[in-house]
């Protein structure tokens, strides 16, 4: 099983590495877009999927990251300052947003984060002196590394890929450590967790902050990818979309965001080109999401679990049947 997994990962990574050679600008751009949403939803998956905090405000962090990057670049500083700054800023704001989560839980927390998102969006739209308001910020540059320009779509894609891989490794490590269990405990039963010395406060705040930092990095990369930002991609609707990606992929599954972001980003693009769909690609996308949920309520990545469960129950019943024959029934 472990070997199979490693093989899959290696194959996927290899595919991601060579893919741009076979794609034109659009394809490469789309892949970068997808990777950026993988990074963002990896963070959200930590908050929602692992720690069980219902957050509907993730797009706000994406936005904060994007604006940080744009403003840093506009001010003449480097991309390489912008990216960590975006992460740190989002980490800090994430910590602050975590505080409501200490007071309210479940849907009420979802409401609170949704309100937070709207507030951030209002600031982005109305504070024209800072954010350019509805006109947005144009000509956001792409970086260069060791004198190598990453301006082109391909080089930039490789940068995004590298960052995504590094962040995935970091998250994987974190989740495998006792922290991962603590987050899950928090999700399952915070009252019990608290009485076992698991700091609900600490882990809740951290789950928000780390999740937010991922979104911040994603936002920074996003700004440079599109090279123009305005408030629209950071609305509550965008948060809801990211939430959708996490749940469709499989909340609490490490690779969930990869599939979820594919559903959210790549699927609609693919549907555009399906013959006969054209104008109906969005309704089809919506319907696909509904069907996916009905079919796999625990997300796409629950498929292996399902197969395993089925196999196990088959084996168990076979074993019992054999046993029953041997023992017989006492009357």
């Amino acid at each position, binding site marked *: 099983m472990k070997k199979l997994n490693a093989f899959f990962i290696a194959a996927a990574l290899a595919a991601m590495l060579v893919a741009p050679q076979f794609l034109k600008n659009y394809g490469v751009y789309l892949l970068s877009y997808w990777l950026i949403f993988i990074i963002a939803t990896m963070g959200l998956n930590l908050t929602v999927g692992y720690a069980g905090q219902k957050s509907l405000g993730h797009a706000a962090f994406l936005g904060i990251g994007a604006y940080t990057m744009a403003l840093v670049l506009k001010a003449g500083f480097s991309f390489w300052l912008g990216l960590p700054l975006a992460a740190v800023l989002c980490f800090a704001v994430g910590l602050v947003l975590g505080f409501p989560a200490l007071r309210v839980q479940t849907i009420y927390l979802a409401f609170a984060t949704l309100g937070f998102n709207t507030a951030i969006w209002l600031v982005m739209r109305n504070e024209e002196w800072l954010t350019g308001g509805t006109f947005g910020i144009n000509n956001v540059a792409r970086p260069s590394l060791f004198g190598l320009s990453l301006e082109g779509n391909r080089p930039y894609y490789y940068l995004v890929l590298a960052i995504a891989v590094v962040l995935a490794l970091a998250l994987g490590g974190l989740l495998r450590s006792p922290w991962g269990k603590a987050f899950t405990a928090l999700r399952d039963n915070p009252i019990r967790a608290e009485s076992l010395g698991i700091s609900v406060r600490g882990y809740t705040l951290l789950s928000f902050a780390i999740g937010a930092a991922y979104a911040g990095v994603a936002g920074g990369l996003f700004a440079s990818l599109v090279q123009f930002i305005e408030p629209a991609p950071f609305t509550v609707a965008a948060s809801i979309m990211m939430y959708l990606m996490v749940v469709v992929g499989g909340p609490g599954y490490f690779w969930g965001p990869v599939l979820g972001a594919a559903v959210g980003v790549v699927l609609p693009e693919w549907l555009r080109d399906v013959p006969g769909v054209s104008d109906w690609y969005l309704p089809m996308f919506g319907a696909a999401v509904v069907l996916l949920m009905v079919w796999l309520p625990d997300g796409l990545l629950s498929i292996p679990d399902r197969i395993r469960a089925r196999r196990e129950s088959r084996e168990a019943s076979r074993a019992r049947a054999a046993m029953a024959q041997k023992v017989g*029934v*006492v*009357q």
Partner: protein
Amino acid sequence: MILNNLSFKAKRGRITLLLGPNGAGKSTVLKTMFGLLKVRQGAIRLDGQDITGASARDLLVKHGVAFVPQGRNLFGQLTAFENLELGGITLGMKTTRERIPEVLEFFPRVKERMHSAAASLSGGEQKQLEVGRALLLRPKVILIDEPSIGLSPIVVQDVFKLLRRLADGGTTVLMVEQNVKSALRMADEAIALESGRLVLHKRADELLADPNIERLFLGGAHAAAAATA
């Protein structure tokens, strides 16, 4: 698969006790009989009538079967009184209101807390409320899963006495208990399960008189099977 090739009879007007270690499948038996879980194979009959696969509602309304599950099964935000009212939802509001005071007589503790939210009651109070809610229906058959959990000794005795009285009045009682000794004292028959299989079916007084009883139950049902086989 949790239950395996299990057959037994519970007789009318008798208290049949379902015993066994944790995870033996006792609760599963009751849930399955009450139509909450699907039967993979086999049949459940009531008075000779096949009720396999009947819905909980049909069992309750048509066949007079009531069920008191093991876990928490109250509507936490409603008051104790409202919970009782809902308990009689299949009887109609008028009958229910008439019967509630009778039931409350048995459980003075609940009566005092009648207008508190069910979730704010203590564990034992909640259990009493649940038992009371089922008695309201005056069922012909009552399936009851570990009524003694959380009840103080006096109340356990009271509940057992009450069940005895119901049985003597013709009600069929099928009860799961871990409070083995006191339960055996009031029951008519006992069945023991182990890993979803039936390992013993005896008269309660016989089992109680068995000099090995201590060892039987302290040593687990495996020993019981061995002893009786």
